[in-house]
C-alpha cells in the first residue's frame, strides 16, 4: 500500500475529535405549543450536520437556540471554544453577543434578517469585523474583499447595496459576512430556499467548496432532502419538536428506520 493511500485511509475526523457542539435536553414551548421536546444534538469539528423536517417541526427554533438568539425553557448547550465555559444559555447578554460575534456565523433564509439592505455589500461584511473590534479601514477593505471572493461574489459589485442584487447574490453576501471572521460554527437556515434551481446549485457548490477548503463546521437546516443529501455528512430528522431519527446521511437515505423518515425519503424519490 503506497504512503499516499495510507494517508487517505486515516480514521475520519469524526471518530478522533471531541464534539465541538453539544446540546442536551432542549425543551421549549411557545405558549401551549411545545416546539422542542428533549432534543439533543452533537456536532463534530469539520462535519456538516443536516437537520430535516417539515414546517413547524422545530428545526429553525433549534437553530435559533444554537445561535443564542433564544433561550429554551430547559437545556444545556456547550461549545468547545476557548472562552466558552459552562452552559451557554446561562451567559449574560454581553457574553452571548461577544460569543456570537466572534465564533458563530449564520445565514438566514430571508436576506432581510441578516443584511443591512441599503448599506454596501462590503459594508455588510465589514460590520461583522467592526463589531469584533477592527478599526483599520484598509484592513476592512482587504478582508471584506477576501470573504466576498471566497463566497464567489463578483468583486466589481462589492460596493453595491444588497437591495439591488439578485437573491443568489444576497445569499453570497450573507455567507461572506458569516465566514469573514472564520467562525467555529456556521449555521445555515434554509440558505437556498426560494432560489431557482440553477442558482440553488451554484450556491450549494460554493458552500461545498468552502466546506472542503476551510473545513468549516456547519449545521444546515432544510426541508429539501436534495440539499441535505448534497451537503450533509450526518442527518437529524425532526418531527413535532422531537428528533425521530439520526444517523449518517447514507444510512438515513438508503435505509430509513422510522416510518416518518421512510415516508419522507420515499416521497422524495
Amino acid at each position, binding site marked *: 500500500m503506497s504512503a499516499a493511500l495510507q494517508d487517505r485511509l486515516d480514521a475520519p475526523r469524526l471518530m478522533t475529535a471531541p464534539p465541538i457542539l453539544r446540546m442536551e435536553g432542549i425543551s421549549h414551548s411557545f405558549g401551549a405549543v411545545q416546539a422542542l421536546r428533549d432534543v439533543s444534538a452533537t456536532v463534530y469539528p469539520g462535519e456538516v450536520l443536516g437537520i430535516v423536517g417539515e414546517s413547524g417541526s422545530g428545526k429553525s427554533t433549534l437553530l435559533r437556540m444554537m445561535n443564542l438568539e433564544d433561550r429554551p425553557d430547559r437545556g444545556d448547550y456547550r461549545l468547545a471554544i476557548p472562552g466558552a465555559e459552562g452552559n451557554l444559555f446561562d451567559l449574560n*447578554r*454581553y457574553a452571548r*453577543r461577544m460569543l456570537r460575534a466572534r465564533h458563530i456565523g449564520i445565514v438566514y433564509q430571508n436576506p432581510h434578517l441578516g443584511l*443591512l439592505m441599503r*448599506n*454596501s455589500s*462590503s*459594508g455588510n461584511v*465589514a*460590520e461583522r469585523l*467592526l*463589531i*469584533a*473590534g477592527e*478599526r*483599520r*479601514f*484598509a*484592513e*476592512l477593505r482587504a478582508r471584506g474583499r477576501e470573504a466576498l471572493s471566497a463566497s464567489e461574489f463578483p468583486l466589481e459589485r462589492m*460596493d453595491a447595496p444588497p437591495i439591488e442584487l439578485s437573491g443568489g447574490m444576497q445569499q453570497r453576501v450573507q455567507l461572506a459576512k458569516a465566514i469573514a471572521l472564520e467562525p467555529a460554527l456556521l449555521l445555515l437556515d434554509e440558505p437556498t430556499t426560494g432560489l431557482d434551481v440553477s442558482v440553488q446549485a451554484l450556491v450549494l457548490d460554493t458552500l461545498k467548496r468552502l466546506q472542503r477548503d476551510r473545513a468549516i463546521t456547519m449545521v444546515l437546516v432544510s426541508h429539501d432532502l436534495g440539499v441535505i443529501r448534497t451537503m450533509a455528512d450526518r442527518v437529524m430528522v425532526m418531527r413535532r419538536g422531537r428528533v425521530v431519527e439520526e444517523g449518517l446521511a447514507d444510512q438515513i437515505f438508503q435505509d430509513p428506520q422510522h416510518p416518518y423518515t421512510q415516508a419522507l425519503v420515499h416521497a422524495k424519490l
Partner: protein
Amino acid sequence: MTALSELTRPWAAMSYGFLDGSAKREMRRKMLKAIAVPGCQMPYASREVPMARGWGTGGLQVTLTLVNPASVVKVIDQGADDSVNAVSIRQFLSRVSGARETWDTCEASIIQSRHRIPEERMRDDQILVLQVPNPEPLRPVEPNISVARQMHADADYGRMWLILYEQLVRSGRIMQGASYPALVNGRHVMTPSPIPRWDVPKMHMARHLTFLSAGREKRVFAIPPQTRVEPLVFSDIPYKVEDHAALTCHRSGLKGFFMNEIPQADGSSAHELSDSNLGIKAIRRAEGEAAAIAPTWYRDGWMTEAGE
C-alpha cells in the same frame, strides 16, 4: 375697614429663573448625574418653557437652572449673537433672572449656543450649554431606542464606524459635516450636537464644563472639564477639520478660523467669521479701540495646545 393688602406681606420675588423650585431640582439632579457619567444621556422631565420644542428648550432649561442674578449670559446662534433667536433667548434669560447680557465670550459666565463653540478659548469658570436636536448617536444605525440603550450599556459601538465606512466607500472621504460622533472619556459615544467638525477638538480636555441638552427628546449629557473627547475615526484615516485655514474674513481681515460663505452677485463667494463677536472685536481693535481678544483654540487653521 381693613383692606386685604394690609393683612398680607408686600410682594417680593421668592425665586428667579422662570422655572419653579421642583423643576430646577429635577434639572440639577440630572445635570449632576450627567457630569458623574461623562457623555451618558440622562433622561429628565422636560418642562414647558415659553418657546417651541426644537428651538433650544433643552439648552434653555439648563441655562435657567444655572443662571443667577450675578451671571453674565451670552447666547449664540450659529456663531452670531444678533440673530432673532439668540436675542430673544438672551433677553428672556436676563429678564427672568436679572443676569447681565453680553456678546463677549471672555466676559460671559454662561454661554448658551446653537451649533457653534466660540473661537476664543473658554476658561474653567465658564459653562457652555449646547442645544441638541437629536441626542442619540446610534439613531442612524439602531432606530429602536430600547436596543440603543442596551448598545450603550454594552459599549457596542462597532456600527458607528459602519456609517463612516459607507461614506468612505461612496464618496472617498468622510462626509459627516456636523454632529460628528465622539467617544467621551473612553466610554460613551455621544453626538456633540450639530457643531461643525471644526469645533469637536475644542471639547477634548477643555477647561470648561459643557452641558448638552435636548428638550424635545428629554435628555441631558455633559462633558466635565479635562475630559477626553475623541472623534470616531479609522486608525489609518486621520480626523480632518474643515479646510478653512486659508480663508480670510472679508470684514475683519482675520484668517484661519471657521468661516461662513457669503454668495456674491457675480457668482463668487466672500467669507466672514462665523464667530461674529470675534470679528467685531478684531474690527474694533483695528480701529484703535481697546478690545481684548482671548487666546483662540485655533491659530492659522491649526488647533493649538492648551498650554500655549
